[in-house]
């Protein structure tokens, strides 16, 4: 309550926002300048350093990084205009952009950066999943326009991880409390949070004092809509103006909009990978032959054509080859049920007379496939995979559960096969691979049974602090080739963002990362 009041009073004090009320805009125009979007949940309290329930798209609207991630992995200036690494590779100097102010009027300077880094380091355990935070020793202000970031070791993905939507973004030091909590969500970004109504909507207003190019839209209203059917109907009735995201509407609905002349649709380039992880530490997927047979027996092309309706391209590798270091030319084995069956025969898995499920040493070739019960897409893919595998004599038990139980299984390894997407740019490949070393997602458990798991972990650690470009490429090659050969992943498709809107909205570009929705660019020329 107190939090809300302070937030509101701070917003009203902001000179830019106060100026907004005086703009001579007729109400009809003002209405047209509001974009209504929808999201399954509220944006959250929007602490720039914290995670769920804070939504990343909203983090990116309010808060900015020192450097941002551009197309194809290039690093571009944001709040820092220039940067340089010191000779020993263990410190970075950032020249900060001049004349940047937070939405409450506080200047953005070296002291503000240090205050935010200190607040984040005060909560190190919460950020341990991110290697950069483990490497940061501290930040110091050399002068008001220059900041020095000290690291424990040379860490090559430093700039990539500085560009993440969280936690290395900056809140106004005036709003940051000494204990690290936040009085009000105030950043330097092109938007300010004007209003939030739990379960109803969040309203973002243009930050009139923004240092960069002003957004063309005046307001973005984000309505809370959980159900994809409701979202599609809302777009048709004009209650919302835009659908943007990986799974905001199902493939059938997207295709229906594509065929409808009243709407414009678009599909982004790959932004991540839809994966199935196979548990190498658990019967029967601990047998390499079983994993390889699964890789051959599931008809990926049919999944992509008939379930995803070609809204996502088929994936044969862990990461799309457009990501840095991963263009290795690896190819998944072709769909071939007979070859998969022969492979199982050769490995001693035989179909008993009259039986449908193969057996070896008295044990059935049966495994659990786990998914989120409410996710219609995961369920449909699961059932199709189950059908494919039953044809070669593998019994798949489908386990659909609530989201938290499902995530618990990813961490505990209590699965035979389980869904697990990669995180997309700028996390792929390095941050996603870094997290393979701890049981935070399905990857660690899926790989745990591999004979070379210790070496995989060691080499991931090495690649992150390697300073030699060629050595890094060689390490990635070994890692990705090994994971590919061991068949611990079944890549289904490359995730894409799907966009639907009416043509009147103008051009809607794609964000550079998976979680960025470029509201600031919508409606501009």
């Amino acid at each position: 309550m107190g939090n809300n009041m302070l937030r509101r009073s701070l917003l009203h004090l902001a000179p830019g926002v106060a100026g907004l009320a005086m703009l001579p805009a007729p109400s009809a125009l003002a209405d047209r300048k509001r974009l209504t979007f929808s999201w399954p949940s509220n944006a959250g309290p929007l602490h720039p350093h914290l995670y769920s329930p804070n939504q990343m798209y909203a983090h990116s609207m309010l808060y900015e990084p020192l450097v941002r991630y551009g197309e194809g992995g290039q690093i571009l200036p944001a709040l820092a205009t220039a940067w340089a690494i010191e000779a020993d590779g263990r410190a970075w100097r950032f020249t900060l952009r001049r004349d940047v102010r937070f939405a409450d009027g506080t200047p953005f300077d070296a002291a503000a950066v240090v205050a935010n880094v200190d607040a984040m380091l005060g909560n190190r355990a919460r950020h341990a999943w991110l290697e950069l935070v483990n490497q940061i020793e501290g930040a110091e202000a050399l002068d008001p326009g220059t900041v020095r970031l000290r690291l424990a070791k040379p860490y090559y993905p430093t700039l990539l991880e500085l560009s993440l939507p969280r936690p290395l973004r900056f809140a106004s030091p005036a709003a940051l409390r000494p204990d690290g909590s936040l009085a009000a969500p105030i950043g330097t970004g092109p938007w300010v949070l004007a209003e939030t109504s739990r379960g109803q909507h969040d309203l973002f207003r243009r930050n009139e004092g923004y240092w960069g190019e002003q957004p063309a839209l005046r307001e973005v209203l984000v309505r809370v809509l959980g159900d994809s059917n409701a979202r599609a109907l809302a777009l048709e009735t004009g209650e919302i103006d835009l659908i943007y995201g990986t799974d905001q509407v199902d493939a059938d609905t997207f295709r229906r909009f594509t065929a409808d002349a009243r709407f414009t649709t678009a599909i982004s380039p790959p932004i991540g990978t839809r994966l199935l992880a196979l548990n190498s530490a658990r019967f029967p997927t601990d047998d390499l032959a079983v994993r390889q047979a699964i890789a051959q027996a599931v008809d990926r092309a049919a999944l992509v054509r008939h379930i995803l309706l070609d809204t996502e391209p088929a994936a044969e590798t862990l990461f799309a080859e457009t990501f840095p270091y991963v263009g290795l030319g690896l190819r998944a084995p072709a769909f071939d049920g007979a070859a998969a069956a022969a492979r199982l025969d050769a490995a001693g898995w035989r179909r008993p007379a009259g039986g449908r499920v193969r057996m070896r040493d008295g044990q059935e070739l049966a495994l659990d496939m786990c998914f989120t019960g409410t996710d219609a897409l995961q369920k449909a893919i699961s059932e199709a995979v189950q059908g494919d595998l039953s044809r070669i004599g593998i019994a798949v038990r489908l386990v659909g559960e609530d989201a938290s139980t499902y995530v618990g299984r990813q961490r505990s390894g209590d699965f035979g096969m389980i869904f697990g997407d990669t995180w997309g740019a700028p996390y792929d490949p390095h941050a996603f691979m870094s997290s393979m070393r701890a049981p935070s997602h399905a990857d660690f458990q899926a790989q745990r049974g591999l004979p070379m798991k210790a070496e995989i972990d060691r080499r991931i650690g090495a690649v992150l602090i390697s300073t030699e470009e060629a050595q890094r490429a060689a390490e990635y090659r070994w890692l990705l080739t090994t994971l590919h050969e061991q068949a611990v992943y079944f890549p289904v498709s490359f995730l894409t963002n799907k966009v639907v809107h009416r043509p009147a909205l103008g051009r809607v570009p794609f964000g550079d990362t998976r979680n960025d929705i470029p509201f600031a660019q919508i409606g501009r020329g």
Partner: protein
Amino acid sequence: MRRLLVPLATGLVALMLGAAILAPWIAPHDPTLTNLSQRLLPPAAGHWLGTDHLGRDLLSRLLWGARASLAAVTAILLMVLTLGCTVGMMAGLLGGVVDAVLMRICDAFMTVPTLVLALFMIGALGTGLTNVVIAIALSHWAWYARLVRGVTLSLRSQDYVTAAQVAGLSRLAIMRRHLLPALAGPLAVLASLDLGHWMLHVAGLSFLGLGLAPPAAEWGIMINDARPFFRTAPMLVVLPGTAILLTVVGFNLLGDALRDRLDPTMPDHVH
């Protein structure tokens, strides 16, 4: 009108029972066999009602769905009757503290809405059709216990029961010989009215993904699976929905008819 309704209801229930019992023999296809290239087909010769989003035969799934739904409802019925009769008769015959304690337990179960209670129990027991059955039975037995207790209390003081007691019959024998037959009528009425209600519960919980594991066919699951396609292939929702509707209507009409027959207090009852 009523003359028509009873055969109609009997017909509907018989139809569903027939489908449930005969599904393995009359279903034209394996209800779980996916064939992605045959998805969302309209009704045609090979698939009389068309196919679903994974290319599975809709008619076969409906028939097998009847089996799952009716099996679940039967299991619930047996559990509820067993639990309700046991608790109700114990309370009615023993009276005193036992009665007070048992009835307070009943009160506790009756105060919580049944769906909420069922969801809570599934949360505790885990998902799956068996647990759904247990959860629905445990959230509905209290009304039966109340009814049985009431009937037992009114019968306990009847002369023929007293006579049986004087004759030295054990409590168990009195329950079996004199109380159960008297209870059959009211229980049959209550149960037949509830069958439809339970069927909706099973379908509702399956719709929420808490019941049978996929790819098994069940009407609630079929409706949930069809949600994304209700604009492109509305029959995927309409057919299992109609199956649920007809079955529930059938059971309710039958229950009404049964009540008219057995309940002498009904105003329009004609002897």
